């Protein structure tokens, strides 16, 4: 359901979008899909050489999940701009310690309407977004601009 310009108010929050706990399998799938084969995201022997305990999630997968959130709020064709700044790394869930590690690997995207304006002859909204894990740690902050009907 596309956003209706008249119904949007600055300060309105959008329905939060929550991921599944991100597994190492999700990282491998994203590596193949995106072409980002940085060993930081799949090779435990590499991460040890740089003093880290375990592989970390691609920042771009978190942005991809945020993209899913955005397209749950607006139609893909209405998206005009999407910007994120990465804040903190994310570690995947450990299968052998699921209950204790699932929160750090579960990402919730929230959105808030920041501005309504006209640009290039169309009505647009700017919406701020934040991605946080289940423990409240911020993963990225950003915004998107969408055409509204």
């Amino acid at each position, binding site marked *: 359901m596309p956003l209706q310009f008249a119904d949007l108010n600055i300060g309105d929050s959008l329905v939060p979008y929550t*991921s*599944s706990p*991100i597994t190492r399998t*999700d990282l491998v*799938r*994203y590596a*193949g*899909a*995106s*072409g*980002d*084969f*940085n060993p930081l995201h799949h090779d435990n022997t590499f991460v040890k*050489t*740089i003093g880290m305990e375990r592989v970390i999630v691609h*920042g*771009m*997968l978190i*942005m*991809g*999940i945020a*993209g*899913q959130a*955005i*397209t749950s709020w607006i*139609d*893909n*064709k209405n*998206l*005009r*701009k*999407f*910007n*994120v*700044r*990465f804040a903190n790394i994310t570690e995947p869930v450990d299968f052998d310690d699921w209950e204790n590690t699932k929160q750090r690997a579960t990402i919730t995207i929230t959105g808030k309407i920041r501005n309504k304006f006209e640009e290039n002859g169309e009505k647009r909204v700017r919406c701020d977004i934040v991605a946080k894990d289940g423990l409240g740690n911020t993963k990225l902050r950003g915004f998107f601009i969408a055409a509204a009907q």
Partner: protein
Amino acid sequence: MADKSKLGYEFPPHRLEVEKGKIAEFAMAVSQKDVPEDVNPIYTDEAAAKKAGYPGIIIPPTFPTNVMFRTGGGLMGVVNALGIDLARLLHTEEEYEYCGSVCAGDALTCKMKVVDMYDKVREDDSGKSMEFTVVETEMRNQRGELVIKARSILVER
């Protein structure tokens, strides 16, 4: 340390065929689904995409990330060309501007350029600096239309 003489460097243009299967795979990855049937059909089914008002199967918002890693010989190619230390590399910011739709079957010509390189002193007391590299990529379709502008900021901490 990134090689500052690379400021202004343009990677050789890269042509990327936007394949239907690749779009489905990407959509599954960002929606954490195992099978294409579980993702939004605008990313997998041409009839559904057309019904939703698109010219064909379209790409998810962050699909253009593919280009950076396939232009310039993959991540390692980019890192090596710019003299970036992989062990210190972090991706700090990413932006896409959508100027037109991109569908399965399109062929994108991608031009990636190093538009800025700068150092910033860390906010901690170490006195060390972080080195930033900003790359911009313009993507045009087979009709020469500018469809996406991407901007990535990489940092060595």
